[in-house]
Structures are given as structure tokens and as C-alpha cells.
């Protein structure tokens, strides 16, 4: 009963999966950066960015439905940008009369809100495609290639390795708690306990998770030391990129650059 489905990587044979992870990583970041720089209200550029990301979804065989379902994760945060509709000044689009308040939606306000929502939605899809089409060890290679410190990459790698172990432990703890969270056969008793007690119990679970993590890290260190580990992170040199990968990288960056120029020149 392990939770493999925690890992968002979906093995497929698509061209997106075959692309070098370094190229994918750089392109995903460049794409998100382009989306971020695109000014509010540059609708054609947003549509093109969305079209690109949807097209890559189709190419990747991940399934547009899968990516869209996952992309809903960012929705709750959109609430944070909601008030901006009513607080920016400009051409009135509509007014809401709520009791003592009068909310006036302005055109720049709506424009900025929709732009923020679109940007966030487009960017999260790019990130989902990257995570869905690249196994984590390949992402670590990409991070090394963009000069993330080796130590940090090694810590990331170790965390990934034990993430599933720890999540399994957390799930078993939750299960053991649920199994004992019963109701009495008496209607005068209110089940659930006090809030502070519930919080402390959850804390106890977290505490025992951390303690076991401490002890586990000791054992892991000993196992590493037993195999000659001395604190140096050794790794193979990165292979050079194939011409095809260079081509994809160059062309895609060029397209993003053109989009960027259009969006700034015309809509900036």
C-alpha cells in the first residue's frame, strides 16, 4: 500500500518526454518568465501562450484533461487577486449594490484580474508538463546544469528518495489515529476531544515522525560512510546536448522572444 501516485511523473514515449531534461527545464522557466512579463490586457499573446502550452500537452501524451485537472490547484489563490477588480480606478464596467457598500468594477481592474488568473493558469500548466514528463532524477541533472549548488542538489535528491518513506509513515500514523477515533455508545458524550488536545496529538505524531527521521538520517549516514562517502558529492560529467536538442532549445527560445517583443511593443 505505497503511494506511488504521489509522483506526478507519467511515463510515456512522447517527444516531450524524450527532450533533454536540461532543455525542458530551461524552456519551462523561460516560458513562465515570458508569461510573467506579458503586460495585463495583452489578450492575443495570452491566447498564443495558452495555445502553446495546450499544444505541448497534446504532444506530451499526458492528456489535456490530466493537466487541466491538476492545474485547478492554483484556483483558491485567485481569491487574493479578486478585490483588484473593484479597487483600480478607471472606466466603470458594472456596479454591485451590496447593502451599505457600492462595488464598482473598473475596466483596468477587470483587465488586471483576468490577466493574473490567466498568467497563473498558463504558468502552472507549464510546470505540470515539466514535472509530468521528466523523472525527478533527470530534474536533478537539469538543476546541476543550471548551476544549482551541488550540495543543495544532493539534499534534494536525498529528500526525494525518502519522501515516499516518510509520507508512508505519516499515512500509517493518520490511519492508526483514525482507527482509534471512535464514538462511545452513549448519546451524552461528545466525541472529538478538546481542540488543544487534538492539536497536541497531531503534534505528537509530527514529533515522532521527526525523531524517527533523525535516527534514520544517522543510519543513512553510516550506510553512506560504509561505502566510502566522505562528504564530497561525486557525479558524472553532464553529457553534451545533441544537435536536435540545441535546435529545439534555440527555436523555442526564439518563439518566446518574439512573443515577448510583440507583447511589450504592442500592449506595453
Amino acid at each position, binding site marked *: 500500500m505505497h503511494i506511488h501516485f504521489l509522483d506526478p511523473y507519467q511515463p510515456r514515449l512522447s517527444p516531450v518526454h524524450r527532450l533533454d531534461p536540461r532543455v525542458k527545464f530551461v524552456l519551462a522557466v523561460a516560458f513562465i518568465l515570458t508569461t510573467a512579463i506579458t503586460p495585463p490586457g495583452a489578450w492575443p499573446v495570452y491566447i498564443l501562450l495558452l495555445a502553446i502550452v495546450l499544444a505541448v500537452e497534446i504532444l506530451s501524451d499526458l492528456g489535456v484533461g490530466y493537466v487541466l485537472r491538476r492545474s485547478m490547484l492554483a484556483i483558491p489563490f485567485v481569491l487574493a487577486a479578486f478585490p483588484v477588480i473593484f479597487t483600480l480606478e478607471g472606466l466603470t464596467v458594472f456596479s454591485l449594490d451590496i447593502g451599505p457598500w457600492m462595488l464598482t468594477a473598473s475596466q483596468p481592474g477587470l483587465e488586471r484580474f483576468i490577466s493574473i488568473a490567466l498568467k497563473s493558469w498558463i504558468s502552472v500548466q507549464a510546470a505540470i508538463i515539466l514535472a509530468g514528463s521528466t523523472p525527478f532524477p533527470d530534474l536533478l541533472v537539469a538543476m546541476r546544469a543550471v548551476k544549482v549548488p551541488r550540495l543543495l542538489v544532493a539534499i534534494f535528491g536525498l529528500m526525494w528518495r525518502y519522501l515516499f518513506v516518510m509520507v508512508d509513515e505519516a499515512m500509517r500514523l493518520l*490511519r492508526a489515529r483514525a482507527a*482509534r477515533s471512535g*464514538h*462511545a455508545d452513549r448519546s451524552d458524550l461528545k466525541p472529538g476531544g478538546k481542540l488543544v488536545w487534538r492539536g497536541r496529538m497531531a503534534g505528537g505524531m509530527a514529533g515522532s515522525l521527526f525523531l*524517527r527521521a533523525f535516527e534514520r538520517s544517522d543510519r543513512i549516514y553510516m550506510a553512506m560512510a560504509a561505502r566510502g562517502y566522505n562528504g564530497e558529492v561525486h557525479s558524472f560529467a553532464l553529457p553534451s546536448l545533441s544537435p536536435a536538442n540545441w535546435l529545439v532549445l534555440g527555436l523555442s527560445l526564439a518563439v518566446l522572444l518574439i512573443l515577448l517583443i510583440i507583447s511589450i511593443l504592442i500592449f506595453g
Partner: protein
Amino acid sequence: MYSSIEVEKLSYSYPDGHVALREVSLNISPCEKVALVGPNGAGKSTLILNLNGILRGQGKISVAGLELNEKNLGRVRACVGLVFQSPDDQLFSPTVFEDVAFGPLYQGYPEVEVRQRVKEALAVVGMSDYVGRVSHHLSVGEKKRIAIATVLSMKPELLVLDEPTAGLDPRARRSLINLLRELPITMLISTHDMLMVRELFPRMVIMDEGYIVADGETLELMENEALLSAHGLEKP
């Protein structure tokens, strides 16, 4: 007739599509002690997790005449004392007392009653002196006993244990077997320890690939070596 637990055509598949239980039916009478055996992946743990609604499959489960549904879930959980394989998962409080008190406190019992129940439960497993101890520092055998006390304090209708003797040294195993023998309570125990099964459990249920393939008297089933070896078991 009154049964401690009644399972009728229970099926369960995991979210990834793997079918773990196929129309399992099982009836246990009060004070019966039943062993659940079978290879890893046979569906034993899945069945156990279904019994108090941690997992919810298709089919009917009744505990002490109480049908398991959304409304009765809390009541059923208190009736089925589920002890997990790793006692570390069960003991998540700083002290033994707090762990054993968890069930009755959650149920909402007043402090006096909770203290009384903790005392009784620890006495039953022979760990009265451990009430103020830190669970983390106990031996595996001691942790197993405390884990059993954490569900006994809820006064369950039946006790369900997952692999109770796994990882115990011979002495701790022997002392646990003696404890299980003396507990006057209905019991369903999933295990690979065939020696313990022969010694302790008059009735044996064999599971494989999600089916109950045999359910009968332990001594009789153990004579059927063809059956045992067909399901990866060995005669002790």
C-alpha cells in the same frame, strides 16, 4: 444469531485499479479466536482496514449487530480494536498514559473514567508499571503490549491484530502469545506465524489473491498440505 462481526460479499479495489478483495464473506461469533493467513498481497491487511471503515469497499459489514455506514462509523471504530503491525505508528504520544488514553478521551469520557480505563487496560496487558514511561524508548515487545492496551481502553467488541509476532525475539513472542491466549475477547489475527496459529487459534481462514480460499478448523486445514502449498503456506 448474534455475531461479533459479519462480512458479506465485501469487494475492494485500490484507486490504481488493483483488486484486493473479491466478494469476501466472513462470520465470527463472540469469543471466537480466528487466524487469517495467506501470502503477502493476499488481501489480509486490506480486509482488516475495511473492518473499521479506514477503507470502504462494496458489500456489507456489521459489527456487534451494528451496520457499518457513514452514520455508525464512529461507533464501529470504537467496537473494532485495530492494532497495526508497527507499534511505532500506534504510539504517537509522549507517554504511555497519553497513548492508552487517546481512544476514551476522543470518545468524550470524563477524566475519572479515562484514568480507570487506562489502568485496567495496562493491567490486562501486564504493563501497569509503564504508565509514565516514554513509548519511544520501550522494546518492540513492550511496544506491542502497549499498542494492544491502546485499543483495549476503548473496550472493543473484537480485537483485530496485524502480524502481532513479526519482529519479536522468541521470548517476547512467547510472552505475547500467552497474553493473547488469556485475553477474553473475540479476536481476528492476521499472521505468517503458523506455529502460533496451531497453538492458539481453533479456526483458520486462508486468503489468496483477494479470495477466502478456505475457512475451517485449523488442525484439519493444516493436514491438507496440498491446499497449504497451493497458497504459499507451510505446515508448521
